Structures are given as C-alpha cells and as structure tokens.
C-alpha cells in the first residue's frame, strides 16, 4: 500500500481472506483497506475472484470464509447476516441485479430504506414522505417515476437495472459502496449518468470500491488506488495510472504472474 498518513479510522478492512464455495477455494488470501473518502478499483480477468470478494463482503450465504476476517468500522462482521451488513452501511451494487416478479419497486425501496433508517435511529418514512424522497433521488439517475410502479428490475433494460442500483445506493446512503461491474452493458450516455450519480452520492465520509475490467468507468471516476486480482489474490496495487497500463498490456501477464508465484 502507498504510505500516506490516514487521519481517520478505516471503514473496511479485509485481512488475509480465504473463502470457498462447494469446497472449491475462490479467495486465497485477500487483504484490502479502505479509508473514508477513498475510491478503490479492483480489476482482473473473469473468474479471478473479484465478484466473489464483493459477494462475501455483502454476506452471500453460498460462500464460506475459511480464514481471515472482514472488519467494518473496526468490528468483525464475519457472522453478520446480509441484511445486518446492509443496515449498518455496506452496499453492494450487483453485476446482474435480480428480477423479482410481483414485488413492486416502490415498496421494495421503501422497506429497504426504512430498514437502514431504523438502524440509524432516523424516523421511518410513510408512503407519502417516501415518495417525496424518491422523487428527489430519481433526479440523480435520471429515472422516470413510472419505474417505481413496476416489479423490481423485471423487464428493465440493462441500463435501467444499473440505474436502479444507483438509486438504491442514493436512498440507503451507505458508508461503503461496492459496485460490481456497474459499467458493464451500459452505453456511453448511461455510463455518464451512472458515474455522475455515484460521484454525487459519495463524499468525504464514504468509501467506494469499483469492480471493473475496463478503463472507461475509471475515466469518469478517478480511483485513488487500483488493485489487480488474479487467482483469488491481489497481485498488484498502484495508482490510477496502473489502470491505464492494464488497458495497454491486457491481462495476460497476470496469468503468468500467478504461475510464477
């Protein structure tokens, strides 16, 4: 890691994390620390474990942490349920947001926003107040009000789904947001909308982890750190110039790197 002085405590500390699914090891010792106001990018080939890392931080039940720990605001969260992690301020933006037929988007957003507000000892919002809040946030991602009356993500285009994710992020006001390939499947206009949404939501108190293969999201949101993952490990960390280097060199060298070590 670069040797800068950190004034405040880290939001997220991942320490030597090993994890597996169906007895298959996926993460093989990942360490990562995020301080308030920082933007980290994690890059790597498909299957290198970067999506898994994000799911494990969010508490996906299919993965077992076999070693190491995840600390959020200084507390070990290994045994917390996904909803407890969310309520305390961890947000995962899904690569493939799940469609939930029959559950109205508005109701879904309201219940989840209230769950977070309850945790923060804020007053829960009734339907009326919530609509006011949503209207304001819809602006951020340039979404139409009509989205709210549809089922969660059902029949949404790729771009609409991703904007719905950012809308949720705006409503939940997380302390850390992990955005898993939020840029994939977006055209350039949608990418700009999403990127500007992310920038508006984040501030000096929040941390952001961007998981991506491509430079183009990082052109919009410049990261403080870029990590390269291969075979379940972070094999290299650098500044935003590392992403540009990757863009040029591709990822092939990461395979060799793994073989050598």
């Amino acid at each position, binding site marked *: 890691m670069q040797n800068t002085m950190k004034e405040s405590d880290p939001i997220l500390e991942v320490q030597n994390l090993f994890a597996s699914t169906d007895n298959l090891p996926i993460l093989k010792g990942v360490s990562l620390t995020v301080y308030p106001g920082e933007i980290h990018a994690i890059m790597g080939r498909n299957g290198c474990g970067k999506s898994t890392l994000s799911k494990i931080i969010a508490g996906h039940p299919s993965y077992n942490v076999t070693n190491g720990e995840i600390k959020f605001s200084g507390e070990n969260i290994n045994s917390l349920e996904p909803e407890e992690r*969310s309520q305390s301020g961890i947000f995962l933006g899904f690569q493939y947001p799940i469609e939930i037929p029959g559950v109205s988007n508005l109701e879904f957003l309201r219940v989840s926003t209230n769950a977070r507000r309850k945790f923060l000892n804020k007053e829960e919002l009734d339907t009326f107040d919530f609509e006011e809040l949503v209207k304001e946030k819809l602006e951020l991602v340039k979404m139409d009000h009509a989205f709210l009356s549809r089922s969660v993500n059902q029949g949404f285009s790729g771009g609409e789904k991703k904007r719905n994710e950012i809308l949720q992020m705006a409503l939940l006001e997380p302390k850390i947001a992990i955005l898993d390939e939020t840029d994939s499947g977006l055209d350039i206009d949608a990418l700009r909308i999403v990127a500007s949404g992310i920038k508006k939501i984040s501030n000096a108190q929040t941390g952001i982890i961007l998981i991506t293969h491509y430079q183009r999201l990082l052109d919009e949101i410049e990261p403080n750190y870029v990590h390269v993952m291969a075979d379940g490990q972070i094999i290299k960390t650098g500044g935003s110039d590392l992403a540009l280097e990757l863009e040029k060199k591709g990822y092939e060298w990461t395979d060799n790197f793994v073989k050598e070590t």
Partner: protein
Amino acid sequence: MKIIEKIKTNKLIDNPTEIQKFCLHKLQSRPLPNFKSELWRLSNKSKFSEFLDYSVNEKEPKFDIPFSKNSQNTIRLIIGENRQINLIEENYSIEQLSEDKLDEYFKEQISYFDQNQNWSDLLNLSLSCTKNILGLKINGSKIPPIEIFSHASNNSLSAKTLVIILEKNCDIELLQVNLGKENSSLSQSTFFCIEENSSLNHGVVSYGEKRSNLLNSLNVIQHKNSEYNLGTLHFKFNYARFEICIKQSVGEAKTNIKSMQITKKDEQISTYTRIDFNGPDGFLDQINKSLADDKSHAIFEGSIIVPKIAQKTDASQLSRNLLLSNFAQIDTKPQLEIIADDVKCKHGATISQLNEEELFYMRTRGITLPEASKLQLSSYFQEIISFIPVSKDRWNLLDKLLNEN
C-alpha cells in the same frame, strides 16, 4: 364413515327427490371412489373419511357474511337461504331456474357422469335438498357483480349446489366464497353453462376454520367464442379437494385458469383439473401454484385432452410449487394427451423453495429474511389473487387471512 353407511342402507335422506334417488342409486352400486385411480390415489384416506363422518344438518343456523360488499350494486346470494330471485332490469335479467328446469338440466348432466370422475357430484346431488340448490339464468348487459356464498356450519355436513346458465352475449363477474366452520364438511358442486360469445370472470375463494373439510367440484361447459377466466384460492382446510372439469364443447373458446392452494399444519389440499377440447382453435392458459408448509401435503393433477378434432389448439399449463418445510410434501402431475397433430401444447412444473438469489438481493438492501420471505410470498400470491374478480380491493383482507397463524 357415517355417510357411506347411510348410502348403503338407503337411510341418507328422507323424501328424496327424483334426482336424489337417481344419484343415490348410482352411488349404491359403488359407494366409495376408486382409491387406486389417478384421481384418488394420493387422497388421504383417513382425512377423506373424516369428511364423511358428519351428518347432514337440516336446520342450519343463519349465516353471517364475514365481509362487507365491495360496491353498492353487488348482488349477494347465500345458497340455502334463497329468497326468490327474479331481477328483471332494463339491461339485464337474473331469473331463478324452476325445479322442473333444474331436474331436466341435472338429468342431462348426469347422463355424462363417470362414476369415479364425478363421484363428488353424485354425492353432492344425492345430498342437496331443493332448498340448497340455486339455479340462475342470466341474460343481458352491464350486469352488476355477483357474490355467492356457501357454507357448512359446525359439526355437520352441508351440500350446496349452484347452477348458472349464462345466455348468449353476456359478460359477468362472479365471486364464489366457500366457508367451512369448525369441524364441518362442505360439499359444493357448481355447474356453469357459458353460451356463445359470453364471458365469465369467476373467482372461487374457499377457506375453513379448524378441521373443516371441503369437496368442491366445478363443471363448466363453454360454447363457441366464449371466454372463461377462473381465479381460485383454497386454504385452511383439514382436507379439501377441488375438482375442475372444463369442456370446450366445439373448441373456439378461451380458458384462463389461475389457481392456488396453501397448506399448513397437517392439511391436505388437492386440485384436479381436466380440460377437454372438443373442437378446433381452443385456447388454454393455466397456472396452478401450491405452497406447502409444516407437515402438510399439496397435490395438483391436471390433464389436457386434445382429440383429433381439436386441431390448432393452443394450450399451456404450468405447475409452480413452493415446498417450505422438511416435513411437507408436494405431488404434481401435469399431463397432456394429444391426438391432433397441428397443436401447440406445452406444460411445465417446478418444485423448489423461495428463490435464494432474490432473497439475498433483498437482504443486501437491509430487508430481514422473514420480511424478504413475506414479500416474495406476497408476490407469489399476487399473480393469482389479482386474477380473482372482486378481490383486488379485498387484497388486504386476503393478505390478512393468508398471514394468519
């Protein structure tokens, strides 16, 4: 099984009508359904005998409808407490069928009966006294929604019969509510005839109290260019069977069915459907959902029969099942029998738990597991409930009922 003994010894009813005599006679030749047949093999025998262990109560207490009308002009009828119905309005008429007409109608129906397939109807028509048979002939346009209630009172067996003849070019909404009181058995048989160019939106909501039983049979004949939409919900019965038999008499008709059964505790609820296409260009879209929790057992068997004459039939049947407990079980058997070659038929079935990825997604948004499960279940129900006419504005009530216990 008190009832069966009475059938055998010819002591079931005093002063039977001609129809009752006839059906009783048929039953006496073989009093019980064939438990080896596909229609009955999964039926819980001891629960079935519980159904037959009550006796008929001639003097039923007055029945209070448990919820209010949804709109002022809704027509509400309680089978067994009929006043004379003869509504002749400017646009429409609803007339009661005379006893003679009903006799004639039943005679024709019975001639098509199959001893095993129509066992429930034979029992029903043996037991249903004149007072408990409601027959309506409906005609005209802008007909207000109709609600019809059947119930069985405590510690007794009731048989109620409903006949509706929907004449040409009519369009109605009808909600049928079957209620079982504590320790009761209800035998409900319903016969619909939907004539040409008519459309019927039919809802059936059946629910019971402690240890109530239900044998619900629905026979529908659809004529040319008719449309029949059926939304049903069965829950909270110790034992319930819902038998649906729909015939498209000459094809060229549309049938949509969305049915659901919810079983908890040690309940057994089953739905059997049989759709016959007796002519070309028929259409069917059917979905049945089951949800089984605790130690309960939910059953769905559906057959689609497409003979040679039914070319260009387009039929689809889905069976979606949620198994929520380690001790519950679900049986499902969607089946196709096809002889025509120019048809589009498909069916599908799934049995699983609630979708884990959907649950995880909601949990990452701070929604607790029980809340997320409830949201998912509500959405699972909603598809069916929203199809039940007159129920949209009563969703809260149904939601409450479904979430009891």
